[in-house]
C-alpha cells in the first residue's frame, strides 16, 4: 500500500508516456495524463505555500532565531494570496486575467516582487567579478586553456575586440577577435556541449528507465513512514 502502489503508478504512467510516443491511438491518453499532471502541479504550488506557512508558524511559536522575520514572510504571503485569489482591485472583475494592469496582484508584482527577485540575481554580477579576480587562476594546463577561451570570448563579446584587431586583413579575418569568438562558440564549444549533452542525456535516459522499472526508489523517501 505504502510502497507497492506508488511503484505500480510510476510504472503504468511511464509506460503510457513511452508507448504513446510510438502508437498514435494512445496519444489521447498521453494528453490526458499530461493534463492531470498540470492540475497536480498546481496542488504542488499549494503544498509549497502550506509548507511555508507551517515552517514559519512553528518558528513563531517556538520563538526561534529571527522569528520576527517570519511575521514578514507570513504577512507578505497572506496579503499576496488575498490579492491573487480574490482578484482585489482587478478592473476586469472575476473573468479577467489575474495580472490585468491595475489589479493589486500586478501592482505588488511590479513594485515588490520584481525589484526583489531581479536585484537578488543582480548580486551575481558582483560575485562573477570577485571570482574572476581571486579564483580565475592559471593553476594548471586545463585551467589555462579555460582561461584563454574565456578571455577570447570576453573580448569578442565587446566592441573592443573589434577595435583591437580591425587592422587584420580580410584574408586572415578569422584571427579577428570577434570572429575567433564566434568560431570558438560554433566549433569547440559546440563539440564540448554536445559531448556533455549526450553523456547527461544517457544518464537521464537510464535513470528514467530505472525509475519506471521501479529499481530506483529514492524519491519515495524514508522507508519507515
Amino acid at each position, binding site marked *: 500500500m505504502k510502497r507497492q502502489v506508488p511503484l505500480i503508478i510510476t510504472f503504468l504512467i511511464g509506460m503510457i508516456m513511452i508507448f504513446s510516443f510510438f502508437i*498514435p491511438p494512445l496519444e489521447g491518453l498521453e494528453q490526458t495524463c499530461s493534463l492531470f499532471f498540470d492540475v497536480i502541479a498546481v496542488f504542488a504550488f499549494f503544498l509549497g505555500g502550506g509548507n511555508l506557512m507551517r515552517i514559519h508558524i512553528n518558528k513563531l511559536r517556538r520563538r526561534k532565531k529571527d522569528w520576527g522575520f517570519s511575521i514578514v514572510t507570513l504577512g507578505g504571503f497572506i496579503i499576496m494570496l488575498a490579492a491573487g485569489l480574490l482578484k482585489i482591485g482587478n478592473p476586469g472583475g472575476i473573468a479577467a486575467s489575474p495580472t490585468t494592469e491595475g489589479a493589486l496582484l500586478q501592482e505588488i508584482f511590479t513594485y515588490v516582487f520584481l525589484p526583489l527577485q531581479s536585484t537578488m540575481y543582480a548580486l551575481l554580477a558582483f560575485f562573477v567579478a570577485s571570482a574572476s579576480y581571486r579564483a580565475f587562476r592559471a593553476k594548471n594546463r586545463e585551467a589555462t586553456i579555460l582561461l584563454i577561451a574565456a578571455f577570447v570570448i570576453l573580448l569578442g563579446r565587446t566592441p573592443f575586440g573589434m577595435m583591437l584587431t580591425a587592422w587584420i586583413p580580410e584574408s586572415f579575418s578569422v584571427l579577428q577577435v570577434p570572429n575567433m569568438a564566434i568560431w570558438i562558440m560554433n566549433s569547440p564549444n559546440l563539440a564540448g556541449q554536445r559531448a556533455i549533452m549526450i553523456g547527461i542525456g544517457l544518464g537521464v535516459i537510464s535513470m528514467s528507465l530505472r525509475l519506471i522499472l521501479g529499481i530506483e526508489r529514492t524519491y519515495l523517501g524514508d522507508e519507515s513512514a
Partner: protein
Amino acid sequence: MKHKSLVILLFIFCAFTLSAAQEDAAPVDTVQVDSILPPAPVSMLTAKDGENDHGHSITLRWELSADDGAGQNSVLSYEIFRWVPFFMDTLQSIQDSLEQTEAYIAELRTFLPRAEKRLKEYRKRKKPKLVIVIFVDSTQFYEDTIAASKRLLPEYEEQLKQLRQWRKQAIDEIPQAHTSYPEQGEWRKVGTALSGQANFKDVGVKERKSHDYMADHTDYYYRVDAVTADPAIRASSEIVGPVQSYGQLFNTGRIPVFVAVLVFCLLTILFVTRARRGAELYVRPLAGIEAVDDAIGRATEMGKPILYVLGLGTAADIGTIASFTILGRVAKRVAEYQTKLIVPCYDPIVMTVAQETVKAAYLDAGRPDDYYEDIVYFVTQSQFAYVAAVNGTMLRELPATNMYMGVFFAESLILAETGALAGSIQIAGTDQVAQLPFFIVACDYTLIGEELYAASAYLGREPILLGSLKAQDYAKAAVIILAALGLLAASLDWTAFINLFSVTS
C-alpha cells in the same frame, strides 16, 4: 522576398494600367476579359490519409499556382474546400438541440431546489392581518412554477434520451451519407493556406460527439481554390477523391528512436543482470572522488567540520539521487574518523532522505550513537535565503572541506566564492552544465556532468548502477562508431545511411 506585399500591389497596379492602356486600342469586351482574368489554378493536387496519426485527418499537397505571388492577378492565398453532404447539417441541428436540452435540464435542476426552499420560507411566513392591495402572495406563483418544472423535467430528459439516440445513429450514417457525392451536398471551405504554401492538413476531431468530428473510412472529396486580392477572382483546381482517413497503429516516422529505445533497454537489462550475477564491472577512478578521503583526513587533523551541500534539487532529480549515494559514503568515512559533518537542506523531502542515508552510514561505520538528528537539517525553500544561511555557516564554522554535489543554479558561484574565501578545500559535482564553469573555476575538484552519476555508481558499487553505467558506455561507443560512419557518409554524400537517422513527425 523583401516587401513582398508591395511587389504584389505593384503587379496589380501594372495589370490595371496595362488594361487601361489597352482600353484605347482594343475593343471593350476583350478588356473586361483581361482585367478579370483568373489566376492559374493549382496543379497536381493529391490527397491522402495523414501519416502516423490516429486517423481523422487528410493531407493535401499541390503544385503552386503559376501566379503565386507573381504574374497577373497574383495569388495571395489558397482556400481548401471539402464536399460536405447536407446530412451533416441535420446532424449539426441534432447536436444543437441536444446541447440546448442539456442546458434546460441543468437550469431546471439548479432552479428546483432553490424554488422549493423559497416556497418553504413563504409558507412559514404568516399572512399579514390586514391584506393590502399591493401585497402579492408569491406562494401561489412558486407552487405553480415548481409544479410546471416538475412536469417539464422528465419530458426534457425523455427528449434528451431520444436526441442522444438520433445522434448516435446519425454519426454512424456519416460514411453512408458521403457516398451520395456529388448529389445532396455542397463544397465547404475547411481552411486556407498562405501563398507559397503547397500543402494543407485537414485535421478533424476524433471525439464522435464533437462538432468537427471527422469520421474515418469515409469518402472525402477535396478542391483547392487559388484566390487573388479580389476574392471573387479565383481559380478552382480539379477535384480529388474519394480519399479516406484511418488511424495508423505505429508511428513509422519514429522508427530510429524506437530502435534506440529497444537497444538501450536490452543493454541495460543485460548488464544489470550480469552485474547482479556478480560479474566484476570496472569503473575508472575519478580525481574528485579520490580527493574525498584525503579531504576527510585533512578535516580530522585540523579538527574542522565537513560541509556537504545537496543543492536545490528535489528527491526525484537525478543529480540529487546520485548525491545521496556520495553523501552515504562521505558520512561513513566521517563517522569512522569521528569528524563533524554539516548537511544543510533546501527541500524537506530531500532532508528526510538525507537523514536516513547518514543514519545508515553511521550504522555501517559501527558508530550509531555518534549520530544525532541535527547533522542534517532543513534551512529554507528559498534559493537566496538558503545561500545566505549556508554562507553564514561557512564563515562561522570555517569547514576544512566543502562538498557541493547535486543540482545547482545561480547560487553555485556565490557558494563556491564564499567557500574559497573561507579557505576550505572544495569538491563540487553537478549536472547543471550552466553552473559547471563556476565550480571548475572556484573549486579544487569538480565532477563534470555525467561524472557525478558515475561517482555514485563508483562509490555505491550497486550492481544496478554499475550495470546501467556499463550500458551507457556501450551506447557512447555506438555514438562514436556511428559518428565515424556518418562522417564518411557525409563526405561521400552517401545519403541512404544519413536518412536512416532522420526522425520525421
